[in-house]
């Protein structure tokens, strides 16, 4: 925690953002398994289920917003750390590791939920890949704050 850019509130914020996206995907999968006898409800839900991937993908934008604002807020901290002897490389690695730890933790939680509901574990794995891409892209932004 000492070397991390993350504070407990940041961790909580990122965890909630990840949980929201995984939960949304799980909710879609759950709705698909429901045996609805209401034609009207089926027709209504079809409007969303048809675009499941797109809707979940659009909601993952909240994770992008988190990374963006997190690094913006921490620009002074990054600069100060470099001043006192830390390196951009180390800060970036710590940042990536923190993000990945939270991601793995949330993914395991969602995997447990998948096992409990008898869903395929691969159904939300694509989200992990998307979030890793976001982490790697945002990690490249750390060096932007090398010069305050």
């Amino acid at each position, binding site marked *: 925690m000492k070397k991390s850019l993350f504070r407990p509130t940041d961790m909580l914020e990122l965890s909630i953002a990840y949980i929201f996206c995984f939960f949304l995907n799980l909710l879609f999968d759950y709705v698909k398994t429901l045996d609805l006898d209401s*034609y*009207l409800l089926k*027709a209504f839900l079809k409007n969303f289920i048809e675009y499941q991937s797109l809707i979940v993908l659009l909601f993952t934008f*909240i994770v992008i*917003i988190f990374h*963006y*604002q997190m690094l*913006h807020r921490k620009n002074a901290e990054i600069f100060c750390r470099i001043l006192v002897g830390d390196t951009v490389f180390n800060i970036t690695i710590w940042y990536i590791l923190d993000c990945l730890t939270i991601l793995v933790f949330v993914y395991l939680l969602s995997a447990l939920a998948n096992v409990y509901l008898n869903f395929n574990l691969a159904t939300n794995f694509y989200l992990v890949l998307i979030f890793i891409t976001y982490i790697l892209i945002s990690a490249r932004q750390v060096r932007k704050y090398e010069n305050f």
Partner: protein
Amino acid sequence: MKIFKFIVSKIFLRKTILGIGMILLLCMANYITFTAARSILSTFQGYQETKYINQEGVYIANLDPDSHMDMNIIGENGSQAVYDYLNNNFNYAFYTDGFIVSVPNIDDMEISLGYMNEEYYKLNQFELSQGTDLDFDYQFGEEIPVLIGKGLSKTYPVGSTIKIEESVLGRSITLKVQGVLKQNVYHANYYALNSKTYYNFSILFPVNEAFINHANIDLQLNGLMDVIILQTSKEEIADLSEVIKDNLGLTFNFFSQKENYDYFNEYYLHTLKIISITTFILLIVITCLSIWNVLVSVRLMLKDFTINLLVGLSYSKLKKIFYGYFGILSFINLTVIFIVTAFNRYGCWLRKDATFATYGLFGLIGMDWLALLLVVASDIIIGVIVVESMLWKTKKIPISLGVLQ
């Protein structure tokens, strides 16, 4: 205006990701509201249409789902016997559609044929834009007076004739256009009220006893499926069920007014409640995410806001700027929804889907405009919540602290 342009371009647009995030969240909220509103409005329209059959003494036929239909057993004599019994003992409204034929028209659409008797015509009170009401006492074998949809009126004006080579009568027939229906006249499915068939590219036939007697078994059987028996009693309906069972080997259920209302209350009201509650919950979640997004925005833009406040920008002016900015984002979303909806409607024309092709202002029909209005209302509510949260956050931090940042 100058300060609005300055703040939007120099503060908001410099952090585009936050703006895009807000647009996406609003887009989700608008899509959910629009979809729910259209589902509810469409069901309500369907319910309004079926109100005329929900009267005392009216029974609607429906083939029992467990009744197996074997076309080898069913003969024309059997169905004729059922219609003879109906003609002698009941007043009934007959309607059937879904017969597709090719009739030349400038939009190159396949045409759907609908058949109805006088009782059904009286119950529905079709609105005409041109011509006169249907005449059901025409001489069989001569030109048949028909109503056509608006889409066909350019090719076949009132008084013109249409020749159809293949018909339910098993021979070519000549139709005479008696009237043109108003645009977007529709028929809702009794068992899926939100599902509609539009008559813009349909021909509606007047059906009388002679017509049914000479029609093929497809028309006779299809007509029986949704036949509406008027001014009758449960005992008479039980006798009719027996006659159908004896002659066609099919089990029919006949639903009364009370059963229809109970069905509506149990099935539709329950479903509409679920849709409304789901929409409401989703909107609350999206509003919470929007608040989080704007609080993040304020946190990142605080320095710029406070400097402007220090040099004379008032909170009331800042509030107006926030509302203006949110208005622009809402407008972008509304435009997207409008374009997507118009494109969907236009898609029916491209696919030559005659039963769903509609006319309307910029391609949108009344129901779409009403749903868009509800989207605007939901945007206003979300906008007030979001902007007030932004302002609250801005006011909470002293100007001096903001400048120091």
